[in-house]
């Protein structure tokens, strides 16, 4: 969806999504507008035409002069039924029929103004690829947002060689177009330590209402690593971002910044927000052995009320100090945890910490009969590592090839291949 949003944005198209649904939500990339009285739906000839009284799905393209250049109402062509990016779904309900994205872009590119824009762009882009850094800096102020984004991208590609562009890029982080801000943020990350003066503005960009910009700012902060230390509190707060990509990139960034933020990460293990506690553990785990000072606090986290935090503590401890006294008994103990994600973390970790004694093998064998297939998979893989060709774990892996969960099936297949 984001790529599509970019395609619309670079054609300078405003997408307006209209629904009579009372539960209008603002999570998408486009403006979602509520037509509760269905009057706009009536004017556009789509009101009350779906079972239950909703508006019939439809798409209109309105050019810059305000004239309708394309109109398609679901089910308009009998027998067509549901085309979604060239795929035909003959059994789908007619009300899902809509033009494909490629069809829509073809219509848009056929509009007079947009075509002229494209021709002009092709020439300018060709020139930009040969441009010097000062020329690219000048292009950051071009009227055409697509060219501004392209200039930022090219500056990023040149990495540290673009260091003189940093002040201009910092200004361009305030561009009015979202995808330009995204490209600018990523370029700053690619320039590296010379772009450290951009960190305060990148932290602001990490709060952008556009999720694409948040993501790009997260990538830049990750790329800047230790120089982005000031972003640590903000990266923790991002654990409540609804976009999972933003949460993941924030975790990665914390891991990269980690070595200079040990105190903050260790303190965050006691944060009142369980997601922040788990994230701090994961970031400490990403640091590895240099984070040894955090192990006592991680041990405490094994008793956390929140299962996600207990699982994260197990994984982190295993990565930081796999030979630690007390780790193996703690993992064996965690195989009895009430939450499957904790049991899975423990079963998986036991295969990598190097303890091959009989009590570990016995505990893993018991875990092969766990009610949860993730736990059985983790235990079987660990047993294969510790006792290659162990018959019982091989049997469990073969059984998991028929699991209902595709990820489990793939995991079991991969483990059998390696064995």
């Amino acid at each position, binding site marked *: 969806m984001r790529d599509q949003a970019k395609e619309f944005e670079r054609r300078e198209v405003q997408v307006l*999504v209209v629904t009579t649904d009372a539960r209008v939500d603002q999570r998408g990339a486009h403006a979602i507008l509520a037509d509760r009285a269905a009057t706009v739906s009536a004017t556009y000839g789509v009101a009350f035409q779906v079972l239950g009284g909703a508006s019939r799905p439809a798409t*209109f393209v309105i050019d810059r002069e305000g004239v309708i250049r394309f109109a398609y109402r679901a089910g308009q062509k009998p027998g067509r039924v549901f085309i979604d990016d060239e795929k035909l779904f003959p059994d789908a309900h007619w009300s899902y029929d809509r033009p494909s994205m490629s069809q829509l872009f073809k219509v848009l590119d056929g509009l007079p103004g947009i075509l002229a824009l494209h021709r002009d762009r092709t020439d300018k882009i060709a020139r930009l690829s040969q441009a010097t850094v000062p020329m690219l800096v000048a292009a950051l102020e071009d009227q055409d947002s697509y060219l501004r984004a392209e200039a930022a991208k090219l500056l990023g590609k040149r990495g540290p060689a673009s260091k003189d562009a940093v002040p201009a890029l910092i200004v361009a982080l305030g561009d009015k177009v979202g995808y330009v801000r995204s490209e600018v943020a990523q370029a700053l990350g690619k320039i590296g330590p010379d772009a450290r003066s951009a960190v305060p503005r990148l932290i602001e960009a990490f709060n952008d209402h556009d999720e694409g910009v948040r993501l790009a700012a997260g990538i830049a902060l990750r790329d800047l690593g230790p120089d982005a230390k000031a972003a640590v509190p903000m990266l923790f707060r991002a654990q409540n971002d609804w976009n999972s990509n933003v949460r993941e990139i924030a975790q990665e960034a914390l891991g990269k910044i980690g070595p200079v933020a040990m105190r903050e990460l260790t303190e965050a293990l006691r944060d009142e927000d369980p997601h922040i506690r788990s994230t701090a553990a994961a970031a400490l785990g990403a640091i590895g052995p240099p984070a040894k000072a955090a192990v006592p606090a991680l041990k405490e986290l094994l008793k956390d009320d929140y299962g996600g935090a207990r699982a994260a503590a197990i994984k982190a401890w295993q990565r930081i100090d796999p030979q630690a006294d007390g780790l193996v008994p703690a993992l064996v103990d965690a195989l009895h945890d009430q939450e499957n994600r904790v049991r899975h973390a423990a079963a998986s970790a036991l295969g990598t910490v190097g303890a091959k004694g009989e009590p570990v093998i016995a505990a893993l064998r018991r875990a092969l009969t766990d009610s949860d297939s993730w736990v059985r998979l983790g235990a079987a893989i660990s047993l294969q590592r510790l006792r290659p060709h162990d018959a019982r774990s091989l049997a469990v892996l073969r059984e998991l090839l028929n699991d209902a969960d595709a990820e489990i099936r793939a995991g079991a297949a991969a483990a059998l291949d390696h064995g």
Partner: protein
Amino acid sequence: MFDRQSMTLCWLSSAAVVALAGFSPHAAGQAPHSEPPNAEDSATAEEQTARDILARFDQNWEDYTNEPHYGDPRWKLKMETVVGLVKAGTNAVRLLDEAAREGSSWAEHTRALAAEVLAILNGPAPVREELAGYDLAKVDTAQLGKPAPDFTLADASGQTYRLSQFRGNKTVVLTFILQDI
């Protein structure tokens, strides 16, 4: 994808049920008890107009089914009925109250519509005012090659978008959806 389709349709029908169950004719402060004693016998001209609108719907409407109905114009009748009755406002409440009642002599689809209109009359003012002020001549006027009819709608945060604000500046893709994208 197909699961979501059936979920959508289920949700839509259950929303209709909620609209029926949640409606309260007395919430509008138009309880029949406040009428003069002989009001039942002396229907005003406005009430008669509302009754005619509802009777036309009663005779001509058929609920949409899950089957294709390409180009079927019945939806215009529903829009005319809803707008006509909302414009009648308080003059239609007694009639709608009667029509929506369990065991009323009106057809099932008319009872449902009467409940829907009562819910609009008792509901948020912006929706009621939008319908009461709607010019029925605008119905189905969006045509290929013609200027797009203007409108103003708001998003969840309350920010308003007026179609004509983009004129001379941006191309607009206007899309009507059942639920999410």
